[in-house]
């Protein structure tokens, strides 16, 4: 019932909600990450997402399994997009469904927090001034490096 995947096409949140909903689930929770127009005050024009694909898929599947075991068998579907995304496009969608709201809300939160900690996906931000930089959440400010083509 649960599922996780890296995808190379736009993410459709409504389709994921339909996929995970079932007659026994009174609560559905969803989180979307989207490409926003600034980061640390810097105008952003787009993001390249890359992944260590085999490991990212394995780690995502583990996280979903952990969420199911921690939160009463909550059903979870996760898709993370890889490739070049424009402003406003969805990079990640997590949907959880359960009979009760606490498990659905906790499940989504667990998956996004663990995903950000453990899943080998990286983003190269494109800035309005033509430069690019790898985002490193472990440092407050990123050194601006030349683009990795």
């Amino acid at each position, binding site marked *: 019932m649960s599922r996780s995947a890296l995808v190379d096409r736009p993410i459709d949140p409504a389709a994921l909600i339909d996929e995970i909903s079932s007659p026994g689930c009174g609560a559905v929770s969803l989180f979307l990450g989207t490409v926003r127009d600034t980061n640390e005050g810097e105008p952003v024009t787009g993001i390249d*997402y890359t992944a260590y694909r085999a490991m990212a898929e394995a*780690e995502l599947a583990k996280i979903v399994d952990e969420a199911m075991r921690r939160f009463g068998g909550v059903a979870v579907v996760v898709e993370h997009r890889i490739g070049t995304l424009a402003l406003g496009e969805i990079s990640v969608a997590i949907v959880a469904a359960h009979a009760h709201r606490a498990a659905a809300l906790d499940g989504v939160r667990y998956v*996004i927090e663990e995903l950000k900690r453990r899943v080998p996906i990286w*983003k190269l931000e494109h800035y309005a001034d033509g430069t690019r930089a790898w985002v490193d959440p472990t440092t407050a400010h990123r050194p601006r490096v030349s683009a990795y083509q």
Partner: protein
Amino acid sequence: MSVVIVQLFASYAELVGRTTITVPLTDGDRVSDLLRNLRSVPLASALPESPRVAVNHAFAAGSTRLHPGDEIALIPPVAGG
């Protein structure tokens, strides 16, 4: 002594200018040995001293023993989501 091919991604691949790097390794070595040997590889000089290591698609502690055929990668700070 033999060698292993270590995969690089994202900023690490950019820092080294390649997507793999070859590191000397002896039978029975652990991840901590791999990281020590890495420092003797000239190409790796731009990498941080102690990057996170993945073995067979899972994060691996320094004590993890390496075996022939293992898939080894250095994992830069992740930034998914």
